[in-house]
């Protein structure tokens, strides 16, 4: 009887192990899984940079000098990735851009739409399109500022422990003068230790 109970318990245990388990993770309480770059880092970096740009207030000065207009910016293709990880750094820039547009801080020129827009305009300039309803050439808005930056890390590994230091620097540069209008950095260091036993 005892053997049968043990066997049944084993079967139940294994059945539990075999079940797939899915759960939603609240992004506001998301934490890093290890010392590598993770989604929580993306949120941390973009949140701190957005707050810094807001509090800097250069957009208010710009508006005051330009009849209430918002500055027009363009994103660099990506943050310069000087880390030892393959990171899609464009996600950081995209997240900041979304927040700045939604909060009415700045307008952005879509750097990635340029080729497609040009193709469309050239196409619409042909006889295939109704002149009165076709989009007009020569109305692209030039950006006044470029948002760029870099991300780097220093990783040290000692046995099962990994220590990883990240430094992210971002700037908004005036295209006409090359003067840095805004600059800030985010840095953090994290350590993680792997379990000594795996199954």
């Amino acid at each position: 009887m005892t053997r049968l109970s043990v066997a049944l318990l084993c079967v139940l245990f294994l059945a539990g192990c075999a079940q797939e388990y899915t759960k939603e993770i609240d992004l506001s309480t998301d934490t890093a899984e290890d010392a590598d770059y993770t989604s929580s880092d993306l949120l941390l970096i973009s949140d701190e940079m957005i707050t810094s740009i807001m509090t800097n207030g250069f957009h208010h000065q710009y508006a005051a000098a330009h009849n209430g207009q918002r500055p027009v910016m363009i994103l660099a293709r990506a943050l310069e990735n000087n880390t030892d990880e393959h990171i899609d750094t464009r996600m950081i820039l995209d997240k900041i851009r979304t927040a700045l547009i939604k909060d009415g801080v700045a307008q952005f020129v879509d750097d990635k739409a340029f080729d497609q827009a040009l193709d469309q305009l050239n196409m619409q300039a042909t006889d295939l399109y109704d002149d009165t309803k076709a989009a007009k050439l020569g109305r692209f808005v030039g950006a006044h500022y470029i948002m760029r930056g870099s991300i780097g890390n220093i990783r040290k590994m000692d046995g099962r422990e990994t220590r990883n230091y990240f430094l992210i620097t971002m700037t908004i540069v005036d295209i006409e003068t090359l003067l840095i209008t805004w600059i800030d950095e985010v840095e953090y260091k994290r350590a993680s230790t792997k379990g000594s036993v795996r199954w």
Partner: protein
Amino acid sequence: MIRKAVITALAVLAVVPGCTTYTARMNDTGVYYYDGEYDRAMDELDELVLSSSNEDCCLFMLERGKVRLAAGMYDSAIVDMQGAERRFDEIEGTASVGEMLSTSIVSEGSKEYHPEPHEKILLNTYLLLSYWESGDRGGAYVERNRVVRRLREYVGNFTAKDDPPLDVPFARYVTAVLYENEGMLDDARIEYDRIAKIYPDAVPWTPNSHLTEIAVLAEMGRAPVKVSREIRGYFEKVNGRTFGCFNLPGSAGQQVYPVTSSFLPGDAGLGTVFTFAFPEYVRLPRVAAYCRPVIDGVEAGTAVTLDDLEETAMEEFRRDIGTILLKSAMRTYLQLLAQNKLDGDAGKIAAVVAKVFSAVERADTRSWQTLPAEIAVFRMEVEPGSHEVSLRYYDASDRLVGESAGRQVWVGKGKKQIAWMPGPP
């Protein structure tokens, strides 16, 4: 009862993995790869990846990644090598209870493959080349950073005396070329200086960011492979300390290593000579002794040695040989002890099982086998634009023994381009 024992033995035989050694399984792939028949090599590796156990899967992926890189399938090469790298990083420094048990009973080959330090450095170097060749400069720079980190982790801790055989100058050279392309000349100089200590002829006069140059990196020969050898040995106690005494083929005299583990049970069986499987590294014969790059139809010079990977692999193995010997011997020794301790029917079963184990036991012969034995370098200033690069291979008597297919290499003004050429066996 004997029938039961036979059935038990057959059952054991059915579950014992790795009855064929890794080297034997890679034989056809190696032949195809070094003949330049990449499609057939990839077909073989597809089969091996699909049919392999978890223990070997990542190593086969590594081999396939290297073949895919040679075949110009850069994205697929990246997928394979990154998959293998991820798993190697996960298991580094960890132990598996199941593996500890299985390696004590079955074979060292029943645990997941842990790459050697030079293999880890080369994994990222070939990933760098895959990104570079695919035109993803950002990806290549990330891999460059990873190579530098790996070099620091695995080579940085050695003393200056250990550096030459265990360093990986090929990895340093590739990272230095990328540094030059970025204008980071101090970083390039650091890497070239390390190479110059081993191969002074292989480095440029001075790192620069203004010359337009091609660096031809030619792979020559096949990496040494491990084969399973049966050797004899015994344990003995001297002044209270236990030693393993072994007769290694090719080594003069007896090899004696102290047993530091307390795993050896009592004094039973001490002095009894037994035979066990042991992995022996074997150098493979080379077709070519040197090569001369042909750039735009003109033989431009002779490539000089940049990296002796064969010696690196052999030296790493030499350093671990005591541990490998003792572990291999201990496994067989414990099996023999268990067999002798059991009486009656159980003893008969144990005897048959031990014979079956003895019949199927092979040493762990795993290693990255599509690596070259040597990498040679030739660097030349060229006009910006497209150039055709091929290699002519010569034997030690200066006879032409083969020529590689030509490949187009594009070099931007003031840039350095790497022309990586997988070579003949």
